[in-house]
C-alpha cells in the first residue's frame, strides 16, 4: 500500500524533472544496454559454435600425429628434447594402414567408425565447373566408406559409392542437386553418367557422376547465395591418389565411438595404445587424441570468459551510473528537506522515509534498466544480424539486468535514503 504510493510519488518526481531524470538514467541505460548487447552476441556465437560442432560430431575423437611433447619425466632424466627441436615429419612417422587395422581389431566395441577425409588442394581452394556459359563452385572432398555409414547423406538419384570405387580409387563422384540445377538445369538423369571437369588452381580433374545428393546449407555461410560452394564428393582413395599420397600412412583422422563409450577415457586409451605399441621408438612424433566434447567445453569456456570480461567492463559503467543515481538522490533529498520534515511531523517513521527514497532510486534504475534492455537487445540483434546469424536473446541476461538495476537502485539509494530518514524533523521543517 505504502509501496504503490511511493512508486507514484517517485514517478511524479521523475516527471517533474524529466531532463535531470533522463541524464541520471543515462549511465544505467548505457551500462545495461552494453551488458545485454554483449550477452546477446556472446550467446548467439556460443549457440552457433555448439550447433556446428554438434553437426561435426560432438561424440567424435580427433586423433593425429603430433610433435612429441616434452614431458617432465624426460626433462628430469636429462633426455629432454631441446625447445625448438623439430625434425621434419617423414612417411615413417605417419599412422600406417596396418596400425589402423590392428587398432580396429583391438577395440571392436568402442570403435564404430574411422572417418578419413582428404581435400584436393588446400582448405581454402575452390574449384570451378564450367559448361558452356554455366558454372558452379565446388570443392573436391574425398571420404572413406566409414564416412558414408556415419553421415546420413541424402541421395536423390543415382547410386552411392561401391566397395570397388574405394578399393580401386575409381574416378567417380557424387554431386549436389544445387550443382545439377546450375549445370544440368536440374535434370538429374542428364547429369548421372556425365563426366564432369573441375578446374582447381589451373589443374583439371575429371570424374564420372554416379549420384546426386541433397545440398544442405553450411551453418557458416553468409546469407543465401545462388552459387554456393558445394562439395563434389569422391572416394577417399581417389583423393589420396590425386594428392600423390597413395601407399602412405595417415596423419590424422576422426574416430566415431559407440554411444556407451566414455570418450574422455577412450581418448586416453587410444593414445596410450598407439604410443606404447607403435610410437615408443619414435624420437620426435607421437599420437594425440582429443575429444570434440572437451574441445567444445574449452571453446565454450573461452567464449564465456571473453563474454564475462567484456560484461565486467560494461558493468563498470553501471557502477558509474549508480553513483550518478546516488548523486541525484542526495540533491533531491536536500531539495526536499522540508517535505521530509513535514512527512515526519505527519507521522512518517524513519523506515517509511527510507523506503520512499529507496523506492525512488529503484524506480529510476529500473526505468533506466528497461530502456537499457530494449537498447541492448536492439544493438545485440543488429550486431548478430550484421555478422549474418540469427540472434539469440538470452532471457536470463534480461532477468539478471532487471535484478541488477534494482540492486544498484537499492545499493546506491540506501545511503541517501538513510540520510533522509535520519534527518531531525525540527531541522528539516525549518529548512528553507
Amino acid at each position, binding site marked *: *500500500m505504502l509501496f504503490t504510493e511511493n512508486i507514484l510519488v517517485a514517478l511524479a518526481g521523475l516527471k517533474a524533472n524529466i531532463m535531470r531524470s533522463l541524464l541520471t538514467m543515462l549511465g544505467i541505460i548505457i551500462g545495461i544496454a552494453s551488458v545485454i548487447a554483449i550477452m546477446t552476441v556472446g550467446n548467439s556465437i556460443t549457440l552457433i559454435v555448439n550447433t556446428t560442432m554438434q553437426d561435426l560430431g560432438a561424440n567424435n575423437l580427433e586423433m593425429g600425429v603430433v610433435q612429441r611433447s616434452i614431458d617432465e619425466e624426460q626433462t628430469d632424466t636429462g633426455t629432454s628434447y631441446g625447445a625448438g627441436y623439430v625434425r621434419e615429419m617423414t612417411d615413417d612417422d605417419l599412422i600406417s594402414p596396418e596400425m589402423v587395422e590392428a587398432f580396429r581389431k583391438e577395440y571392436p566395441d568402442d570403435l564404430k567408425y574411422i572417418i578419413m577425409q582428404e581435400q584436393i588442394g588446400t582448405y581454402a581452394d575452390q574449384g570451378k565447373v564450367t559448361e558452356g556459359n554455366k558454372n558452379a563452385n565446388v570443392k573436391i572432398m574425398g571420404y572413406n566408406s566409414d564416412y558414408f555409414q556415419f553421415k546420413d547423406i541424402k541421395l536423390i538419384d543415382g547410386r552411392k559409392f561401391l566397395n570397388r570405387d574405394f578399393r580401386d580409387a575409381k574416378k567417380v563422384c557424387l554431386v549436389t542437386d544445387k550443382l545439377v540445377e546450375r549445370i544440368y538445369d536440374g535434370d538429374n538423369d542428364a547429369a548421372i553418367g556425365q563426366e564432369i571437369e573441375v578446374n582447381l588452381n589451373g589443374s583439371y580433374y575429371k570424374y564420372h557422376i554416379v549420384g546426386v545428393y541433397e545440398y544442405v546449407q553450411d551453418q557458416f555461410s553468409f546469407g543465401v547465395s545462388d552459387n554456393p560452394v558445394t562439395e563434389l564428393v569422391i572416394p577417399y582413395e581417389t583423393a589420396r591418389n590425386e594428392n600423390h599420397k597413395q601407399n602412405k600412412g595417415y596423419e590424422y583422422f576422426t574416430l566415431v565411438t559407440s554411444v556407451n563409450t566414455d570418450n574422455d577415457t577412450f581418448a586416453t586409451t587410444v593414445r596410450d595404445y598407439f604410443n606404447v605399441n607403435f610410437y615408443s621408438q619414435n624420437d620426435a612424433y607421437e599420437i594425440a587424441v582429443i575429444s570434440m566434447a572437451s574441445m567444445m567445453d574449452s571453446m565454450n569456456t573461452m567464449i564465456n570468459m571473453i563474454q564475462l570480461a567484456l560484461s565486467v567492463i560494461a558493468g563498470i559503467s553501471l557502477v558509474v551510473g549508480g553513483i550518478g543515481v546516488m548523486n541525484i538522490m542526495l540533491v533531491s533529498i536536500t531539495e526536499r528537506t522540508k517535505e521530509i520534515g513535514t*512527512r515526519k*511531523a505527519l*507521522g512518517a517513521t*524513519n523506515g517509511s522515509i527510507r523506503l520512499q527514497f529507496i523506492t525512488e532510486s529503484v524506480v529510476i534504475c529500473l526505468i533506466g534498466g528497461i530502456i537499457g534492455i530494449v537498447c541492448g537487445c536492439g544493438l545485440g540483434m543488429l550486431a548478430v544480424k550484421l555478422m549474418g546469424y540469427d540472434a539469440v536473446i538470452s532471457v536470463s541476461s534480461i532477468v539478471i539486468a532487471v535484478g541488477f538495476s534494482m540492486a544498484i537502485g537499492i545499493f546506491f539509494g540506501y545511503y541517501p535514503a538513510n540520510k533522509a530518514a535520519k534527518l531531525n524533523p525540527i531541522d528539516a521543517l525549518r529548512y528553507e
Partner: protein
Amino acid sequence: MENSNIMLDLRDIHKSFFIGTPNEFEVLHGVNFSVNKGEFVSIVGQSGSGKSTLMNIIGALDRPTAGEYTLDGIDIEKAKDHELSILRNKKIGFVFQTYNLIARTNALKNVELPMMYAGMGRSERTERAKMLLEQVGMTDRMMHNPDELSGGQKQRVAIARAMANDPAIILADEPTGALDSATGRLIMDIFHRLHEEQGKTIVLITHSPELSLETERIITLKDGSIIGQSEGTWNKNAKEVG
C-alpha cells in the same frame, strides 16, 4: 490530582541547546501548564520567547531536556523515536504557518497522507479525506496540486490534513501568519467550528495578542518562562453553560 480530563500536561519543562561545549543555552526554564480536553488554548509570545521550542516539544518533534510531558496519558520522554512518529501520526494534527503541503501531490492525496502512514486502507482513507475536505469547503479543488491553490485554500487543506487521524490535539503554529486578514478570519472560523462542533482540543501558537484573545485561555510566554495566564474572550459563556 491526576485528572482524566487533562489532554496535555507539562511539568517543569526545561530545554537547553548545546551551542558548542562548554556553553549550554537554556531556552525554556521550567514551564508548567496543562490543557484540558476540548479546550482552545493559545500560547502567545514575542519571537525569541521560546514558543517554537515549546511547540516542538508539545508536538513530540523534540524532547525536553528535563521535566515531564504527558500527552493524552502517554509519557513522551520515555517514548522511542518510532513511537514518537506513531504518536505524532495519531495524536497530533499540525497546522503550519507555511502550510507545508507536499508538492506535486494533490489536495486529496495530501489529506490522505497521515492516514496512509497510519495504515488505513485506500478506499477508506480516500472517502475520509473527501469528507474532511468538504468540511473545510475544498471539495471542488481537491484534485489540484498545492501550486494551484491560494494561501487560504492551502491552509484549509492543511487543516483537513491535520484532522485526518482524528487527533487528540490540533497544534497550529501561526496558522494565519502568511494570510491576509480576511482569509485569516476564515481560517480562524474553521478552528472555532472544529472546537465547538467537534470538541477538538486546539493549541494555537502565535505572536499576536489580538489573535490569542479569540481563544478560551491565553498562556503568555516570555524569555522561556510563562509569565501569565489569562482568559480569552471567545464564547466563554457558552462554554460555561455547556
